[in-house]
Structures are given as structure tokens and as C-alpha cells.
């Protein structure tokens, strides 16, 4: 794991952005920084996550940084590195030579905005700081806050684009950045003020990007005069070949030219322009001049009153205004440069207003008012385009007279539309008249409206292209607000189209169905709703994503749907794809709630393929298979006409380019469903991928989607885009949160959920080997020795179920070898995402350590681990952090050290990673969370490996629940009392333990 750092080396002759990393592995090139990441490694990791065009800008580099140092070693930046040791010696700043990579300003900014945490790479806080600052820089450039100027570098001059920070919010942000800058960013040996470092970076970025954007436009400028040379030089990095004196003069002239931009805010008042729409029978707009208090814009006096005042100072609203007459004249004179129309009003002795034609008013509204505002004048515009008078379109969808083509979203229906103002429809004649007007400022039915010509043209073009017919898919897209077209003010639909559109847009109002009769259990009210919704979409063949919070029972909603399907008509089989680790869990749940469903688990080396599989599958209701198999068996699976295809933990197809995700898309079905507990509305490429599986084409191609939604939303939190996207996907996603008031009342305060996990092949092999060894030994022994051997076997088997490395004690790799650990990671992902917290109990300290080490880089946060060896002081500190801070969110505890006494109510999830066959002990651990002070509903997840002793002992306890207290006592010793054949049955590995 590497923690990434970066800083702008502004004191270099050619400033560069320097990237370096701290590694959890030692780099033995003494006397360098011991834990710095190697250049090659850094390059390799960055190249793997970045696109080539960024990595092309990398250059290997070395630099010296001042770093906190203790005991002659650099102190790591984060506890995540696991390198911390307690020491009380003095901390000091020492220079360390660091290897890293250099980037120029643009590449650095591009790199910074696209860098994200990944398992091998954690972004340091300094990188995150620069990430934000790069966005700020881009914002200034996009908003065109820059101007052409000149810079001197030694004896050379070159034309340069300089950034402009002159509005209050930009100044505020720039100041905040400079006050906030992490000290590490100033650790370059020739350390500088943070303000200068930021300014240098911004200047470089502005100049470089500007010149790159317009390179080539200077080809026609060939002359050698100073202004031509300067202008040409604005297009390239080259120096200006001119003599010193001339250039110095140019610098002065430019300074003076630019200085007018900075408004003088010292005055108590400023000139304000107020535009009023014409009164009823006129076309003349009024631009009124007012004096406006600078510190309170609501205080205004018309200029004609001011002119009447005599004397050198004016006193109004308790504010003093010196030389008002002269100052107002200057301001009017300057304003007339920005809006020359007002010249004619200045003929009067005491100008106080100006009449404007419609054209002029429009020009004022669309451009001049902005220039005036930016130059420091007050501007008040009339509020046109209010909701009630907004121009929009009314759309009507009707069933075609001939038969309907296509189905579901693809159904083609008749399409009619009218333009309306507010609620009033406009006649075609009226609309055409408007559309042909030159000035977009028009009076319709007594109301002045500013039209966007482009929107009207786009709307006409788009709607006419439909030729009176449209797919439901397109209609829904328009309803959520198309790009650059008039807004939709109403959507009317007849017959079934209405039913479909109502159902999609108002899913809360859908009719609730009665649960299928052979459903072996009861649905909570919100589950009935969810199942009814799934059934509604099924009717139309529209893909549905059920994204309820973890623990709300997505599984049983889907099972109810399946039962309903097979109860009504369906004969074709359905397909469920899930992660390997939870195939067993599905089997268990289906057994429990709908034993009537015939299920086939498609897995293992002996699985069927081709025609044989198709034939066999047709005899079942549900085929269960895994993500790892769809890609391998797609040729077989895609030949089946499935009734329903359901992806559980659908985030598994989030990377649309993976073979797995591509394969899922090839499956053919009447109805597609995705189940996921992660909030997909926050992970847009995942959202796209899942939507593309459910309803292909609806969100368009990925490249466009990335440009139009992912980047603006993920990088800049673009609110309009967020809203629009939510509107677009709302019909297809149902997500209920545990925190919803209506849901919470349906839920018990504490829910115990058994999570069945499958073993990996390796685990199964080890398990079998242990069983084979032990049974004989146990059989051969007696008394205390036998008891000892039984307990030892028990422990070994539990270890295998947890993780092969725990049993082998060989410190081998952790990833992808344990079904439980994979499942834990999946579930924690959802918990971390919704900002919940979790405790994980295990009885093996070694397992706790593995969990911590494995999960830490996955979640890019420290994971706490409390075991017997933690001193009391440290323990209290951990508990306090966990209770108080937002992060850490995950706390691993060994059952012995953390099973009692502690108060950890900030968590609302408890995982029992392995079982202590004693409910009392488990409950006591659970009560760390479920106690006074707990504000949320608590979920207890008990992990059980399918087909192993864990499942068998668990059901043994369940069966004898009433007796357990008596039988079991406080330990696990009761198991040692069983006879060998009983033990054999318990230890035996059932075939379905492993799905691979």
C-alpha cells in the first residue's frame, strides 16, 4: 500500500508538481527516507489507474523535503502504514531525499482531479487539498476569469495569461486555500508562503492551458511591431524578441489597462441600474438610475432625488457620500462605455433614466447588465419567466389506432404536442409568430417573456423528427427534461400508456398485491410494496433495480415475485446470478420461504452445458449461478430464453468493460432485475452499467454519459445534473432506507440475520483433510485425551472455515481464499457507504489481525482492532475514537477482549465472523451495541459456512432452543460428549459447501 503525496515546487526554475509516496514496505536505500515508495512502483500503480495521456507527462525526479523526524527516522503520515512505534524522543524537521515524479501544471491538475483512492493507493490529505485547488483553477478558467498580460523572467519577457480573482467569493476561497494549506506542501527546502505557492501553480495552469487551447490561431499575425509580437506570443511559450525599453513600456500600459477592472469599493454608495418592463400598453422599457448603498443593497434612492441635493456631501440613510455630483457623472461616463445606449439620456442636465426599445432591453438583459454587474454596478432586472408564465410544451401520448409495435419501454405510441405558456396553450399561429421573431423578448397575452431561441429551435427540430410517433422510452426521457429543449409542463397519456406512466412515475401509489399463497412467511408492508412494484414492471418487461438498504429483505421480495410468476403463468426458468460466497445463503432462504420452487445450482466441474443444460434447466423454476461462471458459460446461458434474470449484488457488474459485465448484458429474458444494497445513485458508472443491463439504451452510450453526468456530478456536484439524472432513473430504482420513518416502524429494534457463506475450493480441501485425520484419532482415544482431541478438531475446522491462512499459519496472501471474508467485505461496503458503523467479533486474535490488514487498504481507513494484548490506555483511546469520530467505522474485536463491559453504541451492525456455540456469550457481545444509547435499529449478522460443522451445530442449537441453556452451559464442552458417529455427522463436509 502506498500513501500518495504531492506539492508544487514553485521555487524551481521551471516549477513542477512533485508526486511521491510513502510505502508500507521498507525501501532499503539508506540514507534515504526508509519508507518512500520506489519510483517504478509509483509509476506502475499510477499508470494502472490513470489514462495514458496523463502518465505521458511523468518525469522521474528527486527532491529534498523537510519531514517530521524522530529517532533518525521519518515519522509516517498515517497510522494506516502500521509503522508507528511509541517513542518519546524529540521530534524535529529533517531534510530527506525523496524519489518521485514530476508533472507540469496541466498534467498535474488532470492527474489530481482523476486520482481516487484504490486498494493499493491512498490519497494523502495534501493530494486531496491540491485536488480541490485544481478544481478551483479549472473553474476560474471555465468562467473565463483571466486576462492577457506580460511576464518578465530574468531578462526575457513573454506574453502571458493571468488569472483574475476579483469577486468576493473567489477572494474568499483563495484566502481559505492559502490559510488551509497542509504544512507538508511547504516542505520543499526553499519553503515559501502558501499564498505564493498557490499563486504560482494557478499562474502556470492558467497560462499553459490558455496557450495550449489557442495555439495555431496566431498564424496570420506576422508583423514585428510590439503589439503584434505580444499578441503572437500569447499563443505560444516562446519569449518575446523585443527590446527592454519597449517591453517595459508595454508592461506599464498593460498594468494601467487592467487596473480599471478592480472596482473601487470604498464608496458608501454605488450606481444601480433598474430595468422595468413596459406598462400594459407600451413597448418602451425603462432603465432607471438609482443610488444604492454598498453595504445594504436594499437601500436605494432614485437619481432625480440626488440631483436636487446641493452641497459637497450627501447624507442619506445615515451614510455619507462625498462629491456626489461628480462621482455620479464619472460612474455614468464609465457605464456608458459598457452600455452606450445610455448616452442619449446624458444629454439632460439631471439624467435619471433611459427609455429602451425592446431590442435594447434585450441586449441589456442578455449581456450589458452582466458587464455592468461585474464592473461593480448594481443591477436590478425584472422577473420575467416566472413559473406561471413559463413557456413549455404539453405532450400527449395516445394509443395508436393500428396495433402497438414494440413492448415495454420500446412501445411506439402516438405523440402530440402543443406549446403552452404556464397552463395556457398557444395556437400554432401564435407559436410560429414567436419563433420567427428576431428579438427573443416578446409579449404574449400581456406578459413579457424572454425566450431562448435555441431551445425553441431544438424543440421544433426534435419533436418534428418524431413524426407523430414516439417510444415510451423517449417520452420518459423528455419528461425528465431533455438537453436544451423547452421544459415539459404536462404529460397526458391515455389508456394503458397512462397506467404505465403513472406506475413508473408514482410508484408509491401502485396497487398492492396480496403475497403469493405458497409463500412460507410474511412480508412486512414495505416488502409487499416492493414486490408489487417488481410485478408491475414485469408486466411491461421493464428492468427494475431493487436497491433497499441491507437488511430490509431484498431476497424475500424477489422470492415472492418468483412465486407469483410461477403461480400465474410462467413456464420458463429464471436465472439468478450471485457472488459465489452466497449461493448457499440463497438456497437456504428459498428452502425456508418457498420450498415449492424447484432450484438448480449451476456450478462445479460436472455442470452441464449446451443442449443438455437447456433441457435440464427447463425442468426447474430457478437456476442459481455465479458471476465467475457467467463469463465462462455465457455461450450456454445466453441460449436459454429466461423468464427472469436477476443479478444479486449487482454492483459486481459495475465495470461495464469487464467480461463478466459484458456477459450479463447478453442474457435474454422477459424481465431483468438487479438487487443491490449500495446506494448506486452515488456511483454513477455502476448506475450506468446496471441500468444498461436492465434497460439497454435508456441512458445512452457510456462515453456521453460520462461526459454529461459522471464528471459534472462526481467532480463538481452539479446540482442540475443530479436532479435530472435522478428524475431519469427514478422510475426504475426502488430504494428504501432503514432510516425512513415509514420503514423504521415496520422493523424490530434488533434483527438477527444468519448469513450463509460458501467455502472456497481450497477451504473445502483443507476441511476434508482435517476431518479425515481427526476422526480416526478421536476414535482411538478416550477420556480427557478424547475431549482434547475433539476440541482441537473443532478449532481447526473453525479456522479452516474462517480462512486457510489462519489454519496454515503461513502468512500467505489473504485475498480471495475465504468465502466468509469476501462476504464480509461486500457487506461492509454497503455499511461504510451509508456511514454506519460495525463491530466484528472473532474468537481468533490472528483472524482479527488478518481482517484488519485486509480491510484497511480496501476501505482506505484505519480499522481498529482490540485484542488481549492492547494496553488499557490504548483500549480506552480506541473506544473513544470509535464512539466520537466519523471514521473509523469498523472495529474488530476478539471475543475475549471485547465481548463484555464495553460501550460501543455508535455501531449498529454486529458481525459474528465465527461462532461460539453458546448463545449467551454471543448475546453478551452483541449487547456492546444493543444497549442504552443506541439510536438506530441493530442488525446482527451471524456468519455460518454452509455444509460444515458450523451449519450443523447451528441447526442443532436451533432445534433444541428451549433446551439449550441447560445442555450447553457456558462453554463448548458439551460437544465433546457426543459419540463418534454423531461427531462424524457433524464434522462431515456436505457437497454443497463449495460452489466453484
Amino acid at each position, binding site marked *: 500500500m502506498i500513501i500518495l503525496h504531492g506539492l508544487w515546487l514553485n521555487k524551481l526554475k521551471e516549477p513542477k508538481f512533485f508526486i511521491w509516496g510513502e510505502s508500507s514496505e521498507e525501501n532499503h536505500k539508506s540514507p534515504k527516507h526508509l519508507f518512500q515508495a520506489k519510483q517504478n512502483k509509483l509509476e506502475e500503480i499510477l499508470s494502472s489507474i490513470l489514462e495514458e495521456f496523463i502518465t505521458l507527462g511523468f518525469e522521474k525526479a528527486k527532491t529534498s523535503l523537510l519531514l517530521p523526524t524522530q529517532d533518525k527516522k521519518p515519522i509516517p503520515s498515517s497510522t494506516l502504514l502500521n509503522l508507528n512505534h511509541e517513542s518519546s524522543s524529540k521530534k524535529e524537521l529533517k531534510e530527506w531525499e525523496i524519489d518521485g515524479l514530476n508533472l507540469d501544471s496541466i498534467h498535474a491538475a488532470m492527474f489530481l482531479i482523476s486520482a481516487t483512492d484504490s486498494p493499493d493507493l491512498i490519497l494523502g490529505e495534501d493530494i486531496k487539498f491540491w485536488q480541490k485547488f485544481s478544481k478551483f483553477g479549472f473553474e476560474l478558467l*471555465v468562467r473565463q*476569469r483571466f486576462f492577457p498580460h506580460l511576464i518578465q523572467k530574468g531578462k526575457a519577457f513573454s506574453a502571458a495569461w493571468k488569472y483574475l480573482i476579483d469577486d468576493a467569493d473567489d477572494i474568499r476561497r483563495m484566502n481559505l486555500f492559502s490559510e488551509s494549506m497542509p504544512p507538508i506542501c511547504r516542505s520543499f527546502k526553499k519553503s515559501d508562503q502558501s499564498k505564493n505557492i498557490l499563486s504560482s501553480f494557478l499562474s502556470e495552469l492558467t497560462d499553459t492551458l490558455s496557450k495550449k487551447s489557442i495555439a495555431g490561431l496566431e498564424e496570420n499575425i506576422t508583423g514585428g511591431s510590439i503589439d503584434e509580437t505580444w499578441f503572437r506570443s500569447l499563443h505560444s511559450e516562446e519569449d518575446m524578441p523585443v527590446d527592454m525599453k519597449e517591453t517595459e513600456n508595454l508592461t506599464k500600459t498593460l498594468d494601467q489597462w487592467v487596473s480599471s*477592472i478592480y472596482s473601487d469599493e470604498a464608496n458608501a454608495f454605488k450606481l444601480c441600474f433598474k430595468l422595468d418592463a413596459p406598462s400594459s400598453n407600451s413597448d418602451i422599457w425603462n432603465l432607471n438610475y438609482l443610488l444604492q448603498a454598498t453595504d445594504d443593497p436594499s437601500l436605494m434612492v432614485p437619481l432625480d432625488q440626488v440631483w436636487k441635493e446641493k452641497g459637497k456631501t450627501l447624507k442619506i440613510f445615515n451614510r455619507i457620500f462625498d462629491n456626489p455630483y461628480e462621482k455620479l457623472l464619472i460612474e455614468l461616463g464609465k457605464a456608458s*462605455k459598457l452600455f452606450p445606449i445610455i448616452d442619449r439620456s*446624458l444629454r439632460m442636465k*439631471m439624467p435619471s433614466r433611459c427609455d429602451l426599445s425592446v431590442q435594447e432591453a434585450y441586449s441589456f438583459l442578455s449581456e450589458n447588465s452582466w458587464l455592468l454587474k461585474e464592473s461593480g454596478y448594481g443591477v436590478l432586472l425584472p422577473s420575467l419567466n416566472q413559473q406561471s408564465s413559463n413557456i413549455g410544451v404539453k405532450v400527449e401520448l395516445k394509443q395508436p389506432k393500428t396495433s402497438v409495435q414494440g413492448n415495454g419501454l420500446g412501445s411506439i405510441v402516438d405523440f402530440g404536442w402543443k406549446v403552452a405558456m404556464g397552463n395556457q396553450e398557444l395556437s400554432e399561429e401564435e407559436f410560429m409568430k414567436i419563433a420567427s421573431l428576431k428579438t427573443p423578448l416578446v409579449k404574449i397575452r400581456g406578459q413579457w417573456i424572454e425566450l431562448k431561441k435555441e431551445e425553441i429551435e431544438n424543440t421544433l427540430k426534435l419533436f418534428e423528427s418524431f413524426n407523430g410517433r414516439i417510444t415510451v422510452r423517449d417520452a420518459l426521457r423528455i419528461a425528465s427534461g431533455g438537453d436544451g429543449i423547452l421544459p415539459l409542463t404536462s404529460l397526458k397519456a391515455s389508456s394503458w400508456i397512462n397506467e404505465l406512466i403513472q406506475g413508473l412515475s408514482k410508484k408509491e401509489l401502485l396497487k398492492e398485491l396480496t403475497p403469493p399463497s405458497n409463500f412460507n412467511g410474511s412480508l412486512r408492508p414495505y416488502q409487499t410494496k416492493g414486490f408489487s412494484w417488481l410485478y408491475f414492471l414485469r408486466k411491461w418487461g421493464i428492468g427494475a433495480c431493487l436497491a433497499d438498504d441491507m437488511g430490509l429483505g431484498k431476497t424475500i421480495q424477489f422470492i415472492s415475485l418468483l412465486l407469483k410468476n410461477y403461480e400465474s403463468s410462467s413456464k420458463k426458468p429464471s436465472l439468478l446470478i450471485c457472488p459465489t460466497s452466497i449461493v448457499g445463503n440463497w438456497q437456504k432462504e428459498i428452502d425456508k420461504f418457498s420450498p415449492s420452487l424447484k432450484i438448480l445450482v449451476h456450478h462445479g466441474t460436472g455442470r452441464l452445458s449446451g443442449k443438455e443444460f437447456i433441457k435440464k434447466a427447463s425442468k426447474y423454476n430457478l437456476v442459481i449461478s455465479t458471476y465467475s461462471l457467467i463469463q465462462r458459460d455465457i455461450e450456454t446461458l445466453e441460449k436459454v430464453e429466461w423468464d427472469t434474470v436477476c443479478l444479486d449484488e449487482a454492483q459486481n457488474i459495475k465495470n461495464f468493460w469487464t467480461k463478466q459485465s459484458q456477459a450479463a448484458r447478453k442474457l435474454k429474458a422477459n424481465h431483468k432485475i438487479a438487487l443491490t444494497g449500495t446506494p448506486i445513485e452515488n456511483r454513477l458508472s455502476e448506475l450506468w452499467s446496471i441500468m444498461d443491463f436492465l434497460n439497454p439504451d435508456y441512458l445512452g452510450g457510456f462515453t456521453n454519459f460520462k461526459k454529461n453526468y459522471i464528471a459534472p456530478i462526481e467532480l463538481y456536484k452539479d446540482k442540475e445534473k443530479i436532479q435530472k439524472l435522478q428524475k431519469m432513473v427514478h422510475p426504475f430504482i426502488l430504494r428504501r432506507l432503514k432510516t425512513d420513518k415509514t420503514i423504521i416502524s415496520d422493523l424490530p429494534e434488533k434483527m438477527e440475520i444468519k448469513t450463509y457463506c460458501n467455502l472456497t475450493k481450497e477451504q473445502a480441501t483443507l476441511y476434508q483433510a482435517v476431518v479425515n485425520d481427526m476422526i480416526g484419532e478421536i476414535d482411538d482415544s478416550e477420556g480427557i485425551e478424547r475431549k482434547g482431541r475433539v476440541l482441537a478438531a473443532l478449532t481447526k475446522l473453525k479456522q479452516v472455515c474462517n480462512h486457510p491462512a489462519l489454519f496454515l499459519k503461513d502468512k500467505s496472501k489473504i485475498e480471495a481464499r475465504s468465502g466468509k471474508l469476501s462476504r464480509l467485505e461486500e457487506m461492509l461496503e454497503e455499511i461504510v457507504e451509508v456511514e454506519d458503523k460495525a463491530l466484528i467479533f472473532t474468537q481468533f486474535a490472528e483472524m482479527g489481525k488478518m481482517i484488519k490488514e485486509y480491510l484497511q487498504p480496501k476501505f482506505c481507513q484505519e480499522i481498529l482492532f482490540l485484542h488481549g494484548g492492547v494496553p488499557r490506555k490504548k483500549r480506552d483511546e480506541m473506544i473513544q475514537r470509535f464512539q466520537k469520530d466519523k471514521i473509523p467505522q469498523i472495529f474488530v474485536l476478539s471475543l475475549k477482549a471485547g465481548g463484555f463491559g464495553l460501550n460501543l453504541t455508535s455501531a449498529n451492525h454486529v458481525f459474528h465472523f465465527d461462532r461460539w456455540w453458546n448463545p449467551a456469550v454471543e448475546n453478551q457481545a452483541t449487547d456492546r451495541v444493543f444497549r442504552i444509547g443506541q439510536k438506530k435499529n441493530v442488525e446482527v449478522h451471524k456468519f455460518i459456512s454452509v455444509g460444515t460443522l458450523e451449519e450443523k451445530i447451528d441447526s442443532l442449537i436451533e432445534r433444541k432452543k428451549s433446551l439449550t441453556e441447560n445442555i450447553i452451559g457456558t462453554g463448548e464442552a458439551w460437544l465433546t460428549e457426543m459419540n463418534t458417529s454423531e461427531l462424524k455427522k457433524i464434522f462431515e463436509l456436505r457437497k454443497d459447501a463449495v460452489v466453484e
Partner: protein
Amino acid sequence: MSYWYYEPSRPREVKNGLKARSKKGDIGTTWWSKKWIGLLESFNWSNRLERGRRYARKGQVINFRLLNGTIRANVQGSAPRPYEVEISIKPIRKKEWEGVINSISSQCLFVAKLLAGEMPEDIESAFSSAKTSLFPSKNEIRSRCSCPDSANPCKHIAAVHYILAEEFDRNPFMMFELRGMGKDGILTYFKGNVESSTQINETNVDSKGQTEEKLPPLENFIDNFWSPLKPLDGMEFSVKPPIVSAAVIKRLGEPPFWRISNTFIKDMEKRYERIGQMAISVALGSDRLGKTRKK
């Protein structure tokens, strides 16, 4: 003037001459420079003016300065040494100026524009009501040139007149100066007691608006070395194009030294839009900067 003199000769090329920026049609864009050209043309110097215009466009006028009401310029002709041209205009008498100023004061527009550094379009009316004229008559203009051509104006003088016309575009107060009243002189009449308010604000562009920061030495941060000193959590950024493009340039107007074209604002707008568009695509991570290669 003899025929043989100018026909075969070609002026020597000037490297950094002051080129008239208009490539065809009229020289001068603002009303006062047009008026100046109109005035020259009304003097019936016709064909020499035409030659002078060509000279001006080619950049034969090497340099040019205004000192004490006299224009001095060097113009490159066909001889190796540039010719020296001098043009002066008869100043208006002080008494007449007072009349002009009185009549200017009677109109808000005049005062407002002059105070804001602009020349009002019909300023001439203020002069005529004071029974004088801002623009000189033919015999109020005196000029001479060191060339052998006996005609006055010769093409060198004419060329300087054209360059002068463009100079009026940039500095409308020059005509006042040629008439004996500098910009500062005229403004003081309107300024009353508050000199400071009209003075051009000479602020340092880079530092304006930013607080002066005095951070303690790095050593003080040894325990908080890696994290931001103030939270930036709430800060938001937006990459939406502005409503008015190149607003900064539109506010600034054309810079005073600009001669290349009369489309500065339009030329800049094109560049601002390109830069803005490139910035959006880079900011959204969708631009590849195709031209960038590893050095």
C-alpha cells in the same frame, strides 16, 4: 515635383514600422479619426493622400511622437535615410478655451464622458457654440518634410496624417493637446476638489484582495504536518461557462497600444471561448491534450 522622381522608386522596407491596421477601405474607426481623415480629404490633396495611405499601410512610418503641440515623425522613403516630418496645429487661445469649457459643462454627457476618459462624439458642438473649432482648418495645419519633393503635403506627410488618424482612435485627447490643452488641463476644470477619485487606480494586479499572510515557521506544525490547517469540506466548484463570454475583455475594452486590427474584442472573444471550452473538457477529464508528448 518631377515625374521621374517617384515613379521608379520603391520605398525601402521597414521592419517594425507603424502599420496602419486597416488593410483596405477607410483608415480609422472612431468618429473623430474618421472626421480627421474626412477633413484631410476635404483639403483636396487627393492623389498624394492616396500614396500616403499606401505608405501608412506598408509601415513606412518608423516612429512618431507628440511634444509641445508638435508631431515629429520619421518616415522611410526610397532614400537610405528616413525623412523627418513635422506637423503642428495652431493652438486655440486660452480665452476661447474658457468659452469651450463653459459650453462643455452645460451637458452632462460631455462631462461624464470626459471624466471617464472618453471623447464625446459631438464635442465639436461645444466648440462651435464658443465660436471656435476643435478640428483645424487647412491653413491652421503646418507641416514640413525633409524629402526632396516640393509638394506639401508630400506622401510622407500624408502617411503621418493617417497614422495620426489612428492615434486619435486610441487617444482622443490628442486633438485637445494639439490644440493647446492637455488632458489633465481640461479635467481639472471639472474635478473640483476631489482629485483622488478620478485618478487611475494603480493597484498591483496580483495582490489585490488577498490577505497578507504571515505563517509561523514550519516547525510549529510538526504534529499537524499532513492535514489541512482549516477544513475545506464545504467548498464547491462549478464548471459552467459564463453567460457573457470574454466579459473581462469587454469590460476592459481595447488596450491603448493596439494597432493590429479593429476587431480586438472579437478576436479575444474567440480565444476566450476556446480556452473556456478546453478548460471544461480538461476539467471533466475528457480531454486528452493530443499534442502533449513526453519531453
